């Protein structure tokens, strides 16, 4: 690697980076500032300094909720959390098992199944949204947690990732385990699962954010406010027709919506990086 000692260059690169960071952070800052003022201040002017209504706005959002939505931000956050965690754990467990089957078992049409899973990578949720909706409706899954979670629970990406990881695990480990007298599921739980720990942690971060940010699917299948996720809630807060949107509450909800993914990234950053860069062998 080239190390250069040119002060001007250092200054320019730092200035560019700081500027970029500011540009990216500014909208979030504005959102935060707007969430600390009264509606009047927010709609009449464009405040750049935090106001004094922070606690009041956030408490109202969490406990009472905005007008016309019918659910508190607290409820919606809980819904979002249930959905995000459900999707995350579901995706991880299903992908682990699918990858385990594809890598370690020789069954009829194994390659066909692998390619079937792999090809679904090319089909985003949006493409299959109508049939999925029909199936969910027929199974009476509309307005329910299983309805929010199950249709999004299979993941070709995660399956593929675990498959690649399992293929790097030496065959001798499986053979040694057979000689030690353990069955296939024991091998899965005792050996493979602990070895995949770092990959699981990395996937957890990615999938949690994916689940939390789901928009189209929950928008389609929730009509009962009690099952709104926070992102849908924010959208509904804007649908006020002729009335006045409660911007300070919307902004507070937005900040709250950003919080869990940020926390997950902060707390799992170390595992995430390790999972992406190293494998335990």
């Amino acid at each position, binding site marked *: 690697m080239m190390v250069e000692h040119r002060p001007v260059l250092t200054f320019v690169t730092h200035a560019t980076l700081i500027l970029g960071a500011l540009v990216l952070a500014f909208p979030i800052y504005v959102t935060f500032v707007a969430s600390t003022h009264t509606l009047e201040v927010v709609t009449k002017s464009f405040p750049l300094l935090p106001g004094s209504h922070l606690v009041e706005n956030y408490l109202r959002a969490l406990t009472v909720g905005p007008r016309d939505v019918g659910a508190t931000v607290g409820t919606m956050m809980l819904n979002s959390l249930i959905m995000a965690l459900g999707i995350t754990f579901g995706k991880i467990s299903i992908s682990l098992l699918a990858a385990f089957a594809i890598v370690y078992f020789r069954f009829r049409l194994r390659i066909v199944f692998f390619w079937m899973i792999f090809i679904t990578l090319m089909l985003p949720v949006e493409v299959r949204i109508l049939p999925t909706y029909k199936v969910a409706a027929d199974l009476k899954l509309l307005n329910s947690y299983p309805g929010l979670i199950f249709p999004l629970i299979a993941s070709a990406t995660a399956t593929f990732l675990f498959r690649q990881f399992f293929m790097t695990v*030496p065959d001798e480990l499986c053979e040694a385990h057979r*000689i*030690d007298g353990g069955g296939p599921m024991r091998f899965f739980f005792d050996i493979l699962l602990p070895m995949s720990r770092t990959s699981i942690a990395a996937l957890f971060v990615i999938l949690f954010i994916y689940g939390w940010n789901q928009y189209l699917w929950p928008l389609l299948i929730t009509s009962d406010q009690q099952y709104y996720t926070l992102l849908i809630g924010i959208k509904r807060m804007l649908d006020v027709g002729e009335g006045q949107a409660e911007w300070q509450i919307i902004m507070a909800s937005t900040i709250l919506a950003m919080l869990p993914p940020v926390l997950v990234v902060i707390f799992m950053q170390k595992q995430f990086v390790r999972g992406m860069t190293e494998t*335990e062998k």
Partner: protein
Amino acid sequence: MADVSIRNVTKQFGKSEVIHGISCDIRDGEFIVILGPSGCGKSTLLRMIAGLEQISSGEVVIDGRVVNRLEPAERDIAMVFQNYALYPHMTVYRNMAYGLKMRRMPKDEIDQRVRNAARILELSALLDRKPRQLSGGQRQRVAMGRCIVREPKVFLFDEPLSNLDAKLRVQMRLEIRKLHEDLKITSVYVTHDQVEAMTLGDRLVVMDNGYAAQTGSPLEVYERPANMFVAGFIGSPAMNFMEVTVQEGGQALKLPGDIQIPLNGSALPGWAGKKAILGIRPEHMELDSKGPRTILFTVGQVELLGADTLVHGHIGAGQVPMTVRLPDVHRFEKHATIRLSISQEKLHLFDPETKKRIV
């Protein structure tokens, strides 16, 4: 403790047969080394004994019981893998205890066995470490510990030393030998390293392309190789081969360059006038400037090994290449001519057609 019988075992992968019917009886407590170049099927044979590979035909019998259809765990064997195959996320202790836990052995007995094995292998201080915190030699010992605690009927080793550096390999070789003398467990050891084979094995099975070329004690295999493959494979540097003519009466050999050497006592009447292949090991020739039946050798490359000198060159007008191993240090000019005598008791003669040993 058990004897093992391999009875006419073959292995097919798809349509191609890679092992063509191997039989071998291994006595209780014996240390058998399966030796051969890479790709000769030696690991496949071992894996069939272990149960990791299906047996296409024939039988493997362990302790009087045909094990063809048994799972590896039911055969009461333990195996050391080339890459050790330790569970990376488990401590040394748990690695060794795992197989016993699977067999639902009581905790205190597991503990006792693991600590005992650790003591034998000098691993007691490392029981809480993970495999990645260990050196190659230590991992190797853990892999052996995992086998010892099981107290199996048969130990199987699949090239266990090939991932170690040269010095460690010598040390571990001695440790394996010592362990075997202490435990007296029937062992099958696969290697391509002839030094390991010679030093460890009570008997060797030399494999060539899916056939057992020869089975015998290390010295038997060295002194009376059954065919040209074994003769060329065992011994380093490899044996010199040259075409010779058996003289009328079968009493002497005519080498390239019109050199004659008598066959001491072992006349070959049936071969008179025919061609044969003569094999001479590099270490069975010596410098001899005066002797009556010396051969002229033209020096090519010289390798000084300190203890020995390897001289590569050729003999006769036919430019037959030959390598000689002389004790001590010798310095020769390139293209110099030296005279060598051959120890007549140590000649090997092979049939040029069948490649099998004649004398």
